[in-house]
């Protein structure tokens, strides 16, 4: 089944390099994963806002996105932990028939109806399952497979020391999230190793970046001080780049470091890292828009190319 690319809000509007990288690594010449561009997708909607203030509105808006995917017969591919959590949780919530009919009452006004994805059957009884929502990491690691990624790596990032940051909503809550064990995740580390890089261990690796749940918008200093704690242990571990699975965590690491004198470790999305390893020209990865310069790791690459 093809994947509908759900870019969300932050990637197209702040870090377009993630979109470019994803299209590159999933493209025909690389991993050849069928992608569909879906114009009708809107905000997931952002859980820190809509899920905080009114769950019913959150569910209706998320259901609208799910119906778009359902009607096109595609799975939703998210590149962001927030989108993943919002849509995945909504699809699970809509399994409840009462909730579903309430939402459908509203969706009728826009000519939509959520049923879930219809399963092939004998034609007499229709069977449905939730619209499938997947995170880029699980698609890469489980559906595509680590070996196929390793095969496509042309520029092993062998001298990169990577601090992996998973981000909360990739892992938790484990009621609805089933990608991997929230206490011992390893898929992003596996992907980093597939790129030839070293994933370093550091204290509080699974801790929050500080931004989630609206805290970044509400009390920015506090969110930044949380990031400062993480940055300290990342520095102690001697990492030269932070790799996240989520653009919002990326934004937080990328902006909070501006407030931390003497600390500037580049932050990239996992798709950026894989694109680099697959030989993409760094000019296309949109690093110009990052606040913390990515040049130190690019210099490493260049030095190797000329050596």
């Amino acid at each position: 089944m093809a994947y509908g690319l759900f870019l969300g809000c932050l990637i197209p509007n702040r870090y377009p390099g993630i979109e470019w990288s994803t299209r590159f690594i999933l493209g025909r010449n690389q991993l050849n994963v069928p992608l569909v561009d879906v114009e009708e997708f809107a905000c997931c909607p952002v859980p820190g806002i809509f899920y905080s203030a009114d769950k019913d509105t959150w569910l209706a808006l998320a259901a609208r996105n799910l119906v778009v995917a359902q009607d096109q017969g595609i799975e939703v591919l998210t590149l962001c932990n927030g989108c993943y959590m919002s849509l995945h949780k909504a699809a699970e919530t809509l399994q409840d028939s009462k909730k579903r009919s309430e939402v459908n009452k509203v969706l009728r006004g826009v000519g939509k109806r959520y049923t879930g994805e219809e399963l092939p059957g004998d034609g007499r009884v229709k069977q449905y399952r939730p619209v499938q929502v997947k995170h880029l990491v699980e698609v890469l690691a489980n559906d595509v497979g680590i070996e196929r990624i390793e095969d496509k790596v042309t520029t092993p990032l062998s001298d990169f020391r990577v601090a992996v940051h998973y981000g909360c909503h990739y892992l938790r809550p484990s009621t609805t999230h089933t990608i991997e064990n929230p206490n011992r995740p390893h898929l992003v580390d596996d992907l980093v190793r597939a790129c030839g890089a070293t994933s370093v261990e550091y204290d509080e690796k699974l801790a929050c970046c500080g931004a989630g749940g609206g805290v970044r918008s509400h009390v920015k200093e506090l969110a930044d001080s949380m990031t400062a704690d993480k940055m300290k242990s990342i520095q102690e571990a001697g990492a030269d780049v932070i790799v996240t699975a989520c653009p919002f965590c990326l934004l937080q690491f990328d902006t909070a470091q501006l407030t931390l004198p003497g600390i500037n470790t580049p932050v990239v999305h996992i798709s950026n890292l894989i694109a680099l390893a697959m030989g993409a020209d760094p000019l296309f990865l949109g690093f110009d828009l990052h606040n913390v310069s990515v040049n130190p790791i690019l210099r490493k690459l260049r030095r190797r190319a000329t050596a």
Partner: protein
Amino acid sequence: MSGETEETFIGGQKTLVVEEKVVLDKEYDPEFVAEIVKYGGRDVKTCHQCGNCTGVCPYSLKTLYKTRNIIKMCQLGLKSLVLQTPWLCATCYRCYEHCPEDINAAEVMIALRHIAVRDGFIPDFIKRVTVNVLQYGQSVAPAREVEVLREQLELGPLSYAKPKYVKSINEVQYIIRAMGYDKLVHVKIERSKDKGAEKGEDKGADNSVDKGEDKGADNGTEKGADKGGD
């Protein structure tokens, strides 16, 4: 640390409330626990104050607001005191993973936010992001600098700039209005009609809160602040 905590926790009432268990009449709301359940929280009365949630909470470890104490305040029905606390939950759900009573403190915090919003405590960022969603169908306002780069990367225009996207924005607006969300968070909707792409400029006038200067500021912050509004 602990002495300081007792001084400042929720208006200096920690010793009074949590330890001496004195609850003032004017602060006591017998319906509070039921209200939390109504908005999707578990019954906080089953919390036996083990403190696991607090030990794993990133913000409890950093601030004077401890998850366990907030749950205790909820048990005691101290609605007015609880609603005054800032929204410090990152919804990381670590508390949930460690709770022996399956309370899911993060969802309790979400329920508390629901109650706060209905009581008129609506943080500005909620309005700002809602305005963005109404305007662009997305929570982050576009930035010129990024649009230029998108052209260079041949990524195509942003959704809001495509004429067909007006239909999607209208659907989003319809849903928000049908759910009464605009009234709930005090944001005005103005129909975007067919000319969806009158971007940039005076968005503030369209779907407005008090004053919308730095809408981008939320998720986009630094960049949004100078690019989003010009």
